[in-house]
């Protein structure tokens, strides 16, 4: 069965210029294994493709069960000149949590 990132992780978004960074932290070790395997930069870029051509970089912090995604060109030209209602992209953490990860995740506790 497929699983949403929301089911296994929490997230926070920050901004610098025209770049959004979104951390994704697993609730459990099992969830971390799924995140690390399935939530690739390519998957994230696919989910954010309508907002940005990328690139997306991913940093791993296994000791915290956390991934940090740096998503460039995602903030409408930059926080200070964007026409967006949320120029900082604070709400984009919630978009990250809607990513659906593919199957073979049976046994992952929905924390």
């Amino acid at each position, binding site marked *: 069965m497929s699983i949403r990132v929301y089911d296994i992780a929490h997230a926070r978004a*920050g901004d610098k210029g025209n770049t959004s960074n979104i951390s994704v932290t697993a609730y459990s070790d099992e969830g971390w294994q799924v995140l690390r395997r399935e939530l690739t930069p390519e998957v994230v870029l696919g989910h954010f493709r309508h907002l940005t051509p990328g690139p997306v970089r991913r940093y791993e*912090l296994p000791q915290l069960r956390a991934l940090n995604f740096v998503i460039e060109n995602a903030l409408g030209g930059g926080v200070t000149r964007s026409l967006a209602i*949320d120029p900082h992209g604070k709400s984009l953490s919630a978009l990250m949590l809607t990513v659906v990860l593919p199957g073979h995740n049976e046994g992952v506790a929905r924390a």
Partner: protein
Amino acid sequence: MARDKIRIGCGAGFADDRIPPGVEIVERGELDYLAMECLAERTIARETLDRAKDPAKGYTPVLLERMEAIMPPALRRGVKIVTNMGAANPMGAARAVRKHAAEWDCPDYTCAVVRGDEVTDVMRAHPELPLMEDGARLESLLPKMASANAYLGADVVAKGFATGAELVVTGRVADPALFLGPMLHAFGWSYDDYPKLANGTLAGHLLECSGQLTGGCFADPGRKEVEDLAGLGYPLADVWADGRVEVSKTPGSGGRLDVATCTEQLLYEMHDPSAYITPDCVLDASGVTFRTLGHDRVGLDGARGKPRTATYKVVVGYFDGYMGSGEMGFAGINALARAKLGIEVVKERLRRRGLSYEEMRVDLIGMNSLHANDASLCPEPYEVRLRIAARTPDKKAAEAVGAEVRSLHMQGPTGAGGGINFGARQILAVKSVLIPREWVKPEIVMEQAA
């Protein structure tokens, strides 16, 4: 002043941050120092404009309201204060506070002012500098430049306290440096002691956004609970001379501080965790771990530091035209189609008036305004708000956007309600350059001597 341990609290994490938790942490936090971070990237440009209109102004507008609430209890308890609310006029801020301190019933105090972060003249002298964002020459921004300030480090904050001051007022200082500064002063840490600089910088990074470490930006009902979010307390750090750091929050306050909140805030506005560049060191946070030490108390481990770079980062604020916007609501049967008709009507009316825009953005609030997702895939909502925003160099054209949206009340589709014209606002955008440290000459000036 050799100390074994100090406690530093955060009293504000942005210019308009909530004041009551700042008072609370002063009164109940048993602090030695309080740092208040109130300068976003572009706010200093706005304050530079204020100063151009009135040379006594140019500090953070909420300065006096905040200091009236926080300074008297802080000084009575011996809590020293550092803040960047000096913005574009640190000396003006210090004088304004002094002018009111007696009526606030403040004990006598000394105040040190950090100057020298402003580098507009340096920018004009070096049009060849490449912009960090796109590599273009700084020259293109100079005619539109509103401000230019270097992010100073913790050394100037420490020097401010070294004068014996109870209050240190700065302009642009790197946010974590407001917290590292008191540590450098209290413990005499040197700039080649990278583990300590790293721990202090990490502590500052975690604390600088106030409630974001203590349960703000976190709660998700039924999923991630935060107890008494309404009574959210601000964070504090206990720092030992050997570099050990533990973070906690105002005793008895609401909110939550644990490994989960610390992890989210660690990565907040961080790109490569192994290279978080500050004026004081390059923090390598890639191996950071958090230890639960008790209720609302977490220990920090694993931060590593590398030498500070040879450059200061400068943020250049510049005028980038005007943005006009407005909203209108629709509800009930066929609400979405009426909202879409309203959008087309506004666009056509602006076109027939001969107005054009660099960029126009249309949102359907309730469907796609935050994630810019494909509205055709959303279920049709019971109610929806249209929002139109546009950017233009022409202020009158910007003003027309919200005016046309609001006039849909009377001259748009049926049942248009709750219209708002946000008017036109001047856009102050920012870009960055790096400059050699030698080009910046910070100085500490006592406010009484002025």
